[in-house]
């Protein structure tokens, strides 16, 4: 019974924590913009939380720099299970355009596992909201219905990538010789 309550609570009110791994600030502002009155991510029960220990969802932005890598891992380890990571922004996906600088290690997944990729430079607040919502869809039937409705009425191609889709994309790129 408890697990049912927990799952319900998690789906209804996920707490998110924001972590900058070396980003330029563009995406970080768009995350804030997503939480503000216009896009209002909070209508899905999302609450921005300062401490990773209380958070279910980590919004990570930017390429992972050499100095912050240990901190990123430590922040991730401090989060309680089950935890999800949304990687926001193009540089969080591949490290580009900073890669291969001497202090840049690559994307967020160079340090911690990622559950959802939101591309864009900077990522748009609506795409960030959609990425978070899509993760919630696995937990909450209401969010799932919403996602289904969005996907039925709008073209969502390329707005977000799941890890499988991202792996496919990377294979394509590798075949193309990049």
């Amino acid at each position, binding site marked *: 019974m408890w697990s049912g309550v927990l799952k319900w609570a998690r789906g209804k009110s996920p707490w998110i924590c924001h972590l900058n791994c070396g980003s330029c600030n563009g995406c970080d502002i768009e995350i804030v913009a997503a939480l503000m009155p216009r896009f209002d991510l909070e209508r899905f029960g999302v609450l921005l939380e300062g401490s990773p220990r209380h958070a279910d969802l980590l919004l990570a932005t930017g390429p992972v*720099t*050499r*100095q912050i*890598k240990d901190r990123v891992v430590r922040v991730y380890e401090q989060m309680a299970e089950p935890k999800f990571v949304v990687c926001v922004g193009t540089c969080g996906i591949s490290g580009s355009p900073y890669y*291969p600088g*001497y*202090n840049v*290690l*690559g994307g967020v997944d*160079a340090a911690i596992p990622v559950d959802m990729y939101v591309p864009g430079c900077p990522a748009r607040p609506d795409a960030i909201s959609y990425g978070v919502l899509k993760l919630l869809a696995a937990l909450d039937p209401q969010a799932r219905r919403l996602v289904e409705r969005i996907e039925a009425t709008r073209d969502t191609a390329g707005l977000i990538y799941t890890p499988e889709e991202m792996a496919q994309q990377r294979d394509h790129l590798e075949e193309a010789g990049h």
Partner: protein
Amino acid sequence: MAVTASELVERIQAEYDGELTEAEATSEVDAWVGVPPEDVRGMARFIIDTWAPVYLSTITGVDTGRQIEVLYHFVTGGLALNVRAAVDKGVDEIDSITPLVPAAVLYEREVAEMLGVEMIGHPDPRRLVLPEDWPEGDYPLRRDERPTDREDEEDNG
């Protein structure tokens, strides 16, 4: 009465009693003067005394091959006064101007760690931006062959 950059240069040539390696006005607002590295503090003193208030925009380090040029970008009364001091590689040290110009404190630390020019007399010669595990003696903005370039990239993923 607007002073032009060339008047600024003329005044330095006339009143500064140390050696000048260059003195030129490249535009109406840009003046460039060069001094030997050991005279940097004297030049800074001269500039502060002559044109106070003087504003230090930043300090740039440039690797030109055999030398490392340290450029001090001052602003005074709508004019940009740039002071150049070329440090030979191998010598790698220059007097800190922080005791005279407190604004230089972070810029000098940046030049020191990025190009390996030791700032003599700097009150706080710690690293500024490079990671703690960055190897000693490896300066990212030097253009020589660098031993640690890209080698450890693989195992970090």
